């Protein structure tokens, strides 16, 4: 750190920090505190009566099968988004790492979906999967498969997973490509001289060296699927059919803004905060570990 070279002003640093700190306190810490406080209250929708109920909101939540359904949906959804997005991205990155001709053209054509909003991605795939005139169900029909994501919950989940993962492929691709390009060529050449085939080289040398990148991406993708895909669900399935695509974030929104269940929504917010904190700590542990190498 810059310990030997610092300015000795006492007031200036606070002026410099003030905007960031004020916004943090007013729009982050204060609402988070409010959520924590409200999670211990039961309030009727009109605000006439407020009662302090300790952990009743949490107990109610944890006994609610709807909530557990939402937990399950979120985990399935996030795992699928992370897996689909990462596997396809790794495949493309492994291919792009070795091509000589057209490498930058491929890169350009693969990274632009990063700029697409999740809700826009959802709308695009929702049209393509439209049961009555979408192009994909039309093709599936040729194989005798009848697609309808309005009634089939597995199919609804498939659409939101594909839309969310599609948008994330470019991000994963860039990180995998950077990770691949950081692997010393001499290692691969040594293995080649020893007679290892390209596939063997990939699995036994490249893949293990890529695992820190893969772990980082796993956390980032899970955070993305947990928290940034609200628009995907909100614009297409609305959590349905039934509650088969109702993720935790969508449920917080629905219970709070549509159902006006303030205490229940606040309790859900608190649980979500715990999840984010855990994920962030995991991510930073990893970063620290990497620094020691």
């Amino acid at each position, binding site marked *: *750190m*810059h310990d*030997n*070279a*610092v300015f*000795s*002003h006492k007031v*200036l*640093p606070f002026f410099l*920090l003030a*905007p*960031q700190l004020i916004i*943090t306190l007013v*729009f*982050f*810490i204060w*609402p*988070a505190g*409010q*959520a924590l406080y*409200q999670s211990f209250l039961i309030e009727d929708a009109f605000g006439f009566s407020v009662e302090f109920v300790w952990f009743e909101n949490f107990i109610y939540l944890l006994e609610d099968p709807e909530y557990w359904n939402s937990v399950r949906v979120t985990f399935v959804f996030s795992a699928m988004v992370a897996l689909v997005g990462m596997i396809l991205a790794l*495949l*493309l990155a492994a*291919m792009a790492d*070795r091509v*000589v001709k*057209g490498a930058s053209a*491929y890169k*350009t*054509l693969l*990274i*632009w*979906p*990063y*700029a*697409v*909003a*999740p*809700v*826009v991605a959802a709308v*695009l795939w929702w*049209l*393509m999967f439209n049961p009555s*005139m*979408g*192009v994909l169900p039309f093709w599936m029909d040729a194989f005798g498969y009848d697609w309808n994501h309005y009634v089939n919950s597995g199919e609804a989940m498939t659409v939101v997973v594909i839309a969310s993962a*599609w948008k994330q492929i470019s*991000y994963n691709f860039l*990180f995998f490509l950077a990770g691949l390009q950081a692997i010393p060529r001499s290692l691969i050449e040594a293995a080649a001289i020893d007679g290892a085939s390209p596939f063997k080289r990939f699995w036994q040398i490249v893949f293990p060296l890529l695992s820190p990148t893969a772990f980082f991406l796993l956390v980032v993708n899970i955070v993305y699927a947990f*928290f940034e895909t609200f*628009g995907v669900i*909100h*614009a297409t399935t609305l959590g349905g059919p039934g509650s088969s695509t109702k993720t935790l*974030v969508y449920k917080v929104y629905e219970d*709070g803004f549509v159902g006006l269940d303030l205490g229940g*929504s606040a309790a859900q*917010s608190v649980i979500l*905060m715990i999840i*984010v904190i855990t994920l*962030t700590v995991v991510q930073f542990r990893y970063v620290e570990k990497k620094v020691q190498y």
Partner: protein
Amino acid sequence: MVENRPWLTVTRHLVLILGVFIIGFPIWIALVASTNSSSEFVSGLMPLWFGEEGFGNFRRVLANEERVLGVSVSASWMMWNSFIMAMVIAVGKIVISIMSAYAIVYFRFPFRKTCFWLIFLTLMLPVEVRILPTYEVVASLGMLNSYAGLTIPLIASATATFLFRQFFMSVPSSLMEAARIDGAGPLKFFKDILLPLSVNNIAALFVILFIYGWNQYLWPLLITTDEDYYTIVMVIKRLMSAGEGNIPWNIIMTTTILAMLPPVIVVLGMQKLFVKGLIEQEK
């Protein structure tokens, strides 16, 4: 390369071309849909080739002729709103983050660690997990339906602060000592030495933050009821809720293209900086 196996090279190109097609297919569909009339989406297979209505669709959406968007404002106005939101968020985040990173790296003052941790906490509290209380705070400050409400609550940024902190710590301290010997104060050092050194980092961060701001969905959805403040990304959802059979797909896809265009142009136009800025986040 280590060895030359032509079939492997061919496979690589095939996989990549297939990838490019799968990634690009939705855009093809959107472009095609935006050039067809709404009657093409009523029954049978959706159009897979360009129609004649492209010019008309874009004109109607951009000017909101015949209220095609179902709201009282035009797509061009909503793009302007999105642009303001993206710019204020991107510039605002960069300004306040560079200031706080400067304070944290170059000064020693009481509660320095506490300030650092407070900023760090914002990383753990995305809007999505504290939807309702944040809405209440913004409402009680009278910031609903305003540009201030759309932008200021999203401006705090731990990631940008960390990035600048990391960068400042890599600047040799001899630079600062030299500046001090020459009699430069902290503000002069910041303006004349640190800022010019940070130009690349700022530009890279700008690309990422502009996209972040432009693509905001949940936040504008919550705090705007006045159509004058609608953004282009959130209006798409309103068109979607017309009910199955009545969804104006050609209008939606035209709007979708307009909503994608600015951030995609920014990414492709500043590709090198964007990639660099993105990869730095991992460090």
